């Protein structure tokens, strides 16, 4: 795929993720984020949540992957901006989608989002890609 095939308004292929209790535990262990609302149901309920909530930074990682997989081999991500609008909970299907918002030269701007299994948008975001992939020498 090349940038010449990218059109404004183009939808990105939909994806899905589910945060099982195992994934929440693995993520807490890897990241060190043991805030109780992610693993202690009583604590989550005391905070007004209906279940264990998915770490925001886990969703951010999913959205990074989502964009990176779509642009693999022809662009790299320069910026990713994620806003959490509502909680996502364990064992619920999270849909991920995106759309091309602008193309200017070698820069592509995307809007991205997640929605829960009730259709509520839970995350909104934006990503900026650049179609030139720098060499290691340029980076280092």
């Amino acid at each position, binding site marked *: 795929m090349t940038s010449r095939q990218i059109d404004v308004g183009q939808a990105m292929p939909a994806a899905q993720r589910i945060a099982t209790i195992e994934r929440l535990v693995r993520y807490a*262990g*890897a990241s060190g984020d043991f805030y109780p*609302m992610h693993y202690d149901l009583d604590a989550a309920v005391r905070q007004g949540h209906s279940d264990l909530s998915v770490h925001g*930074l886990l969703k951010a990682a999913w959205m*990074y992957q989502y964009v990176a997989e779509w642009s693999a081999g022809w662009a790299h991500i320069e910026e990713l901006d994620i*806003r*959490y609008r509502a909680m996502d909970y364990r064992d619920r299907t999270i849909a991920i989608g995106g759309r091309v918002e602008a193309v200017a030269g070698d820069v592509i701007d995307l809007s991205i989002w997640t929605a829960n299994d009730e259709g509520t948008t839970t995350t909104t975001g934006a990503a900026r890609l650049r179609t030139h992939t720098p060499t*290691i020498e340029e980076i280092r």
Partner: protein
Amino acid sequence: MTWNTVAMQGQVGWRSPRRVDAVECRHARDYARAVGLSGSDRVQIGDAVLPTIVACFLTEPPALPGVDEFGEHWLNGGDAFRFRGVLRAGDRVQSATTLTAADLKHGRSGPLGVLTFVTEFEVPGSGAILTHTGTRLRR
């Protein structure tokens, strides 16, 4: 619940102690597995890693002094990343976090503190690799 807006806004400019984290192969593999990235069984020194692994080098929730004076609970309002270079297994990452803004908003469930933390990640010899801006909420 106590809510000391003056104390909250007085923390703007707070800077965390500088920390150094190694991007270890095993950790990079475990992080990739944790976020569900397939084909991540082998990570070797020099391999590019998922840059969002820097989330592991943030202190979450933030260790902001005096935070009990404004709100009881943390929520994550947003995360923004500006990528400047490739992070590799074996890199040693230096970082420090600064509280750059603290605003009070009134939501349906009461006061909400909106705190903006900016963290610069650098690899010595390579310069800035990534800037993370975290919006964290106190409710």
